[in-house]
């Protein structure tokens, strides 16, 4: 965190100054480690074992926050008797289909036939036709129908409040994690029982009524074939300890780009519509009603899904969207499977994609499998690159590593390339959404130079031109384009569309054009329009709430008048959990929001209906938020509970299990199942995989960022200051590995995988420690991934070494753990480079390209 989010790290130091204990768990020693109480090196790819052992420590020692767990989680829910755990099936959950390599999750559900009396209500949806289950995913492959964030399981299931029923979630969890012991942590993660004990004791001692523990993670947790399950394991731990929805608690994703949270909320992601509504999948007869049935549950705040969706359709298609035509729901294109960025690259290589837009993105350096990425760029008919600088994704046709090695030439690459210069952040107005869901408006300071324009300008004017060309078309496929609302007020000499007007549309307005106060004002009858329901309120009262900048020193520590956080300016999500079931703060020192006898109040905007008393019990047929009890904080969930066990929504299991990375130096001691059985693999030319273990690729490597550079370097390697500060690609190796391989500090090394070989300067350092794993020494190599063939400072790209292998939930690549060989000296040049890689593949027994 001190390296990649340095200014955010000041708050960790503030916490430390007030007595917080700081652990840094990371394969390498960094500036974070230097000021933490303890740095604990871990083998990349083994975190579920560590976190699982912490869960086991909490459960077996009875350290859970029982009042919180019983009331706020699904610990008491009873699971289907047909459910089989990884502990029963040697690493598989029940429902696995080895042919299709996917799960049918029906046995993971709550029990609806139990004899146990329900303290809550019957699970109505479990008896309805199961629209979300495996039958649909069979059509489309893993992940096809699980894109909705909300659960689809309906109301609260049968419960056992004693938590003793053998099939209640609490007991299922206990059995599942029983083998995740400190000894296993030592064997798999390389963390000593003493170090583990110190972490375990610290988190238990710092959780409960009086204290909270926070976990902070970044892509070190997400970029794995089990990435979603890493986060899940932390969620289980934090729910058991009562650390969600409370100040100083949480699982905090430190996101790496100014508005990467915004890019998810208002998604340029294939599977989502704004506000986490799912993109529709293809079905024979699908209308708005059937879509909504599948999209989310009927209870909890997702129960208002029709209002969210109809308002979105009204924002996009305005007067053309009417009740009679299903509000133009048919105008939306349909999905049939994984259309994520890696699948798109494979489709480019297969010749299926004609045109490609890169807007502020440099996949030639920044995406895994760089050779495949560049091959994709070389395979499309035309490419539009919009950026500040001439990044490698724009210049690949003349300076890629494949040109240098002679594998291809510019004369052989048919891609027509348009480079359009972009406006910088000070040359346009607009909002970024930071890592804490805070929207902050940045004002335009001056006009961009020459041809540089904002992406807002580009999309708007491209849209105008396309609409002009299609005007008068009678082809029904052009109706969605022509009916689109696309009439933003223009400003300035370049006819920029007004970003404030776009934000107003995102916020939403009523039939009279008045801006909406928030998402609770949305209607499902077409009388409101709203481009992103969770952002509704960002322009409330016709005021740009995101531009508020009341100085921090002049307001409370929550600083509610700086920017605007979604939803409804709430700064901590699910903060009703900061109070006990009766609505009283768990303790004075952790008071955050509470029930004052008449309404919810406190330091933050309560993430709960203001007037709903803690004693509220929903009537049996209640819908939406009316179905959420007054003591159920997790208002987006159908049952208002935090899920320790996930009956639906994940494609790789209801509980996290440790699987080795796809490329691992060791076997999996827990299960016969070595790797996540539903991970997405793409064995083919250009994307060969290293075998598990073996002598050819004996070392583990992990990739990371440096303080002075930014991801694929488009915003850093082209700047003189930053280039000077961090001029050269390097690898970090331990003194032991340096001795083993003859690597010299300051000299060169060549790192080889089945994909390619790169060179890097050698940094021999104690910052990377060899670990004892499965009875042998495992060396890890650290590789920053910022460099490429263009820019002021140049070097080989670490991402070229990585394979394309994905988490099936998220379709994110495993770039934090893979294997390689390393040897001293520079890599071969020209044709000798692919020859070296071929030789390695042959020796390792990998199919020839």
């Amino acid at each position: 965190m001190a390296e990649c989010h340095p200014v955010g790290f000041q708050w960790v130091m503030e916490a430390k100054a007030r007595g917080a204990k700081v652990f840094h768990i990371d394969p390498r020693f960094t500036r974070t480690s230097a000021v933490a109480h303890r740095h604990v090196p871990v083998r990349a790819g083994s975190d579920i074992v560590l976190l699982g052992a912490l869960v086991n420590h909490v459960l077996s020692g009875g350290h859970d926050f029982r009042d919180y767990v019983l009331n706020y989680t699904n610990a008491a829910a009873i699971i289907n008797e047909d459910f089989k755990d990884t502990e029963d099936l040697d690493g598989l959950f029940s429902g696995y289909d080895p042919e299709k390599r996917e799960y049918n999750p029906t046995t993971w559900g709550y029990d609806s036939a139990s004899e146990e009396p329900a303290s809550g209500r019957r699970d109505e949806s479990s008896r309805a036709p199961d629209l979300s289950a495996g039958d649909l995913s069979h059509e489309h492959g893993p992940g096809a129908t699980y894109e909705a964030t909300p659960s689809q399981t309906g109301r609260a299931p049968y419960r056992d409040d004693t938590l003793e029923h053998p099939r209640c979630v609490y007991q299922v969890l206990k059995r599942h994690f029983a083998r995740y012991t400190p000894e296993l942590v030592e064997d798999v993660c390389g963390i000593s029982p003493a170090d583990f004990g110190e972490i375990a004791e610290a988190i238990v001692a710092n959780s409960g009524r009086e204290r909270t523990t926070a976990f902070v993670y970044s892509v070190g947790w997400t970029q794995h074939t089990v990435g979603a399950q890493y986060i899940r394991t932390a969620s289980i731990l934090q729910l058991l300890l009562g650390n969600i929805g409370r100040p100083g608690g949480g699982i905090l994703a430190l996101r790496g780009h100014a508005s990467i949270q915004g890019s998810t909320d208002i998604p340029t992601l294939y599977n989502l519509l704004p506000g986490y509504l799912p993109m529709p999948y293809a079905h024979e007869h699908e209308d708005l009603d059937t879509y909504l049935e599948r999209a989310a549950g009927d209870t909890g705040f997702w129960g208002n899904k029709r209002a969210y969706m109809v308002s979105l359709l009204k924002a996009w298609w305005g007067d053309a969207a009417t009740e009679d035509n299903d509000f133009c729901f048919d105008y939306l294109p349909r999905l049939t499977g994984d259309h994520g960025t890696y699948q798109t690259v494979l489709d480019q290589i297969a010749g299926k994609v004609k045109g490609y837009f890169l807007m502020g993105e440099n996949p030639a350096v920044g995406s895994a499998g760089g050779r495949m990425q560049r091959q994709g760029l070389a395979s499309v008919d035309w490419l539009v690159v919009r950026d500040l600088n001439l990044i490698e994704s724009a210049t690949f046709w003349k300076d890629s590593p494949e040109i240098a090695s002679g594998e291809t030439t510019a004369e052989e690459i048919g891609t027509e390339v348009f480079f359009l210069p972009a406006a910088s952040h000070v040359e346009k107005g607009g909002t970024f959404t930071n890592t804490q869901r805070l929207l902050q408006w940045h004002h335009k300071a001056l006009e961009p130079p020459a041809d540089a324009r904002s992406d807002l300008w580009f999309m708007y004017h491209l849209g105008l031109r396309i609409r002009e060309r299609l005007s008068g078309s009678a082809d029904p496929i052009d109706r969605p384009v022509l009916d689109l609302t696309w009439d933003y007020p223009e400003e300035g000499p370049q006819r920029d569309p007004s970003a404030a007007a776009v934000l107003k549309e995102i916020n939403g307005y009523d039939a009279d054009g008045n801006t909406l106060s928030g998402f609770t004002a949305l209607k499902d009858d077409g009388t409101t329009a709203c481009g992103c329901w969770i952002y509704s309120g960002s322009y409330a009262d016709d005021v740009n709430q995101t531009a508020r900048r009341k100085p921090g020193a002049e307001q409370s520590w929550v600083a509610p008048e700086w920017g605007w956080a979604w939803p409804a300016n709430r700064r901590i999500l699910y903060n009703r959990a900061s109070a006990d079931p009766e609505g009283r703060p768990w303790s004075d020192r952790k008071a955050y929001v509470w029930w004052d006898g008449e309404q919810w109040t406190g330091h933050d905007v309560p993430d709960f209906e203001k007037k709903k008393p803690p004693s509220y019990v929903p009537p049996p047929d209640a819908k939406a938020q009316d179905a959420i009890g007054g003591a159920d904080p997790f208002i987006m969930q159908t049952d208002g509970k935090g899920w320790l066990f996930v009956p639906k929504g994940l494609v790789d299991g209801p509980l996290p299990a440790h699987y080795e990375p796809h490329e691992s130096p060791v076997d999996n001691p827990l299960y016969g199942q070595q790797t996540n059985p539903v991970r997405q693999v793409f064995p083919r030319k250009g994307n060969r995989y290293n075998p598990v273990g073996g002598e050819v690729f004996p070392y583990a490597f992990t990739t990371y960022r440096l303080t002075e550079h930014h991801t694929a370097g488009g915003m850093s390697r082209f700047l003189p200051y930053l280039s000077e500060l961090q001029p050269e690609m390097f690898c970090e190796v331990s003194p032991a590995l340096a001795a083993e391989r003859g690597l010299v500090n300051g000299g060169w090394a060549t790192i080889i995988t089945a994909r390619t070989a790169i060179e890097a300067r050698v940094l021999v350092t104690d910052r990377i420690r060899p670990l004892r794993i499965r009875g042998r020494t495992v060396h890890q190599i650290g590789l920053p991934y910022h460099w490429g063939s263009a820019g002021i400072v140049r070097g080989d790209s670490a991402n070229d070494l990585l394979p394309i292998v994905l988490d099936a939930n998220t379709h994110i690549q495993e770039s934090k753990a893979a294997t390689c060989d390393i040897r001293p000296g520079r890599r071969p040049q020209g044709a000798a480079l692919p020859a070296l890689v071929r030789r390695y593949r042959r020796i390792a027994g990998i199919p020839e390209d």
Partner: protein
Amino acid sequence: MARVGIESWPVLRQLTGTDRLGRGEAARSKRTDALVARTEQADRVVSSVCPYCAVGCGQKVYVKDEKVIQIEGDPESPISRGRLCPKGSASKQLVTSPGRQTTVLYRRPYGTEWEPLALDDAMDMIADRVIEARRQGWEDTSGGKPVRRTMGIASLGGATLDNEENYLIKKFWSALGAIQIENQARI
């Protein structure tokens, strides 16, 4: 205080004055006294947000003669309290770096060099290509089910784009029927 002759020598002032360490008054010169921070010469100061990581540090952008002359941390931000990291501190060069490409470039198929192209022409050519690729990749159905989409166009966006920009990207591509609309957020 104007000094002339030998009295102006810093070393003498250090030895004879109260500033024995030579780090204060003794080291000052006329030039020192005349120095003015360039932030004080700005025509305007505009509130902004750092475009690198997602912490969201406040920035103050100093503009003089329609040029950015400095970018500094905003002490009023409750998030950053005036701090910027090396990247945020260097962000002025995002705007002013001499290597920044500010005009449109075009590379024709199988070409070996960039060529200049007018922005207006580039926009027209791109619009034409989008319409053509959209039709080439159009699918009314897939596996017998209606999809009404095009597989001919894909987009990958960075995550330093504004929300408003992402909104127009998603809105317009969806209206065109393009589904392969992706972002760094997947990566």
